């Protein structure tokens, strides 16, 4: 077969295990395939650096490009340049804004709005089971402000919750920046401020565990239903221990492999759906046996 060079610029490797595992999985998948060579770049969370990397990849005339955007809008002009140079672009993990859709071939990743919705359902179901669906009060700890995944998850959650549990009130949302320590601080303040917290929705399990730690320290963990997203190993363990209720199972390995595959499919002239979601099922204490423990 033909030899392809595919470039990827990632958001911020090393900031959490998900992104690191993604990178490793991506490299492993590429090595396993003799047809591809990859140029792996990391923007370190900096938009300017990412735009520069996109330009570099264009300049290096890669055959296709995969982008994990640091900012869903800021990369659009750079993506347009790739488009103008006839380099197919696949967006991975976190989508770009709609204005850019003309310039990309596909988005490959989780459906974050659905994830938010599913988290709302998990939360609501649990409240119903406990019989507090009419009076429960919850707080939300969202991801990094301005980051598409964070916005979409919060949006999905906030839209869906009133549909399934109209009487549950979301009393406050604060960002935890995908950061366990930050989230722990935010939760500490919530615990002081509100005597009655029945549930916590966190933009990912990393933050969720931070919130759990805070609640544990205040001896209130037992009263609170913790629901997260992106089931990290720590979240899985906390579920095993019975402290953490549910999450969304999302594998960075699936994520990375799907992105690479999407790019290859495009290069091989196959038809790929524009929004190429991979499945991210609900996981709770009840069904966690069906899932293997996340490796990250």
């Amino acid at each position, binding site marked *: 077969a033909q030899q392809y060079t595919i470039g990827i610029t990632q958001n911020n490797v090393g*900031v959490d295990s998900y992104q690191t595992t993604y990178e490793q999985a991506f490299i492993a998948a590429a090595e396993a395939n003799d047809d591809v060579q990859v140029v792996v770049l990391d923007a370190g969370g900096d938009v300017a650096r990412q735009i520069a990397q996109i330009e570099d990849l264009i300049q290096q005339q890669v055959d296709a490009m995969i982008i994990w955007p640091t900012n869903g809008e800021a990369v659009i002009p750079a993506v347009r340049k790739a488009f103008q140079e006839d380099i197919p672009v696949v967006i991975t993990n976190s989508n770009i804004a709609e204005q850019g859709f003309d310039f990309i071939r596909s988005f490959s990743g989780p459906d974050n709005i659905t994830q938010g919705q599913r988290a709302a359902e998990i939360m609501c179901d649990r409240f119903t089971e406990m019989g507090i669906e009419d009076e429960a009060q919850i707080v939300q700890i969202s991801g990094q402000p301005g980051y598409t995944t964070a916005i979409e998850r919060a949006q999905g959650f906030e839209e869906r919750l009133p549909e399934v549990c109209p009487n549950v009130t979301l009393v406050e949302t604060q960002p935890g920046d995908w950061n366990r320590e930050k989230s722990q601080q935010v939760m500490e303040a919530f615990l002081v401020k509100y005597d009655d917290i029945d549930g916590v929705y966190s933009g990912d399990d990393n933050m969720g565990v931070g919130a759990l730690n805070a609640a544990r320290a205040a001896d209130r963990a037992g009263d609170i239903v913790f629901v997260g997203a992106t089931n990290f190993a720590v979240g899985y363990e906390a579920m095993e*221990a019975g402290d953490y209720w549910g999450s969304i199972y999302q594998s960075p390995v699936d994520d990375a492999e799907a992105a690479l595959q999407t790019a290859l499919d495009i290069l091989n002239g196959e038809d790929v759906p524009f929004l190429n979601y991979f499945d991210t099922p609900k996981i709770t204490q009840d069904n966690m046996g069906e899932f293997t423990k996340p490796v990250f």
Partner: protein
Amino acid sequence: MTEASEKTPSTGSAARGGTTAATPAGGLSKAGIAGFLARQGILVAFVLFMIGFTLANERFISPDNVLGVIRSSAILGVMALGVTFVVISGNLDLSVGSMMSFSTIVVLDLHDQIGPGLAIPAMFALTLCLGAFNGFLVGYLKLNSLIVTLGMLSAIHGLTLTWSGGKNMDIADKAGTWFSVFGQERVLGIPMPILIFLLLASLLGIMLAKTPFGRKVYAVGGNGTAATFSGIRRARTVFTCYLISAFCVATAGLLQASRSLGSQNTVGQGMELEVLAAVILGGASLLGGSGTIFKTVIGVLILGFIQNGLLLVGLQFYVQYVVTWVIIILAVWLDIAAKRGRLLSPIA
């Protein structure tokens, strides 16, 4: 600086052999208040803050909240203690944030490999090595501390990522380890981090105020050349300050790791500036030679309570940035204004 106001009118015969202050009558009480504000302005600001927030939300002053704030400030506070030494010696340490993530990640990783009993000393040793490197570069090679520790900020972050492979670090058996005592236990109802913070603050406070070493730190920061001419080994003193800073960072890393038994590589990032803000708020001069541990503790608590208070009155986290800005400028301004006896700077 009350001394300034007690200054004799001239050094001539009026004060010959005398030790009494010839302060112009009437100026005394004014100078007294100004002097008090200059010395204790930060305390006054602190008290005003506490009253303000308490009026805004009665929960603010509840024992749980107060303990909670101090506990979550403890990590920042422990780091600020060490940085206080470095700043008084006339240098900066911008690498403490990176270094803290290093020690947190290292102790968590080693915990599962060699057990907590060995992991803790090993982590302290490694962190002290980083501090020693800082101290060697700044103390012995006399390189500019801002740039050196800026470089170390970046380099240590690279080191941490290399160590962890970019992955989160978590202790496997969270329920079964005694490692959690430092971050999670209470003694007499008081959380361990607070006890450790206060214990360390007392020890280091006494060390700085009462021991020959502390005196040397002030001398080296006040005038390094004069200190050398007085037989003080400046390089060694600066080196030791960086070791103390690293020791505090390691302690902070221990508290952090023990508190959550797992961590991301980003832990501690950006803390160097918060730490510095606390130290400056406490009144230490970046030129060196002034500052105390007690004031740094107050600076730390002010930052902690502002953050908490704003959250309690329902303001967004970023309002805290603006408030901190205003407070830092006001605190430092009033401090130097009182010292020079006029509000506006005499700069033309």
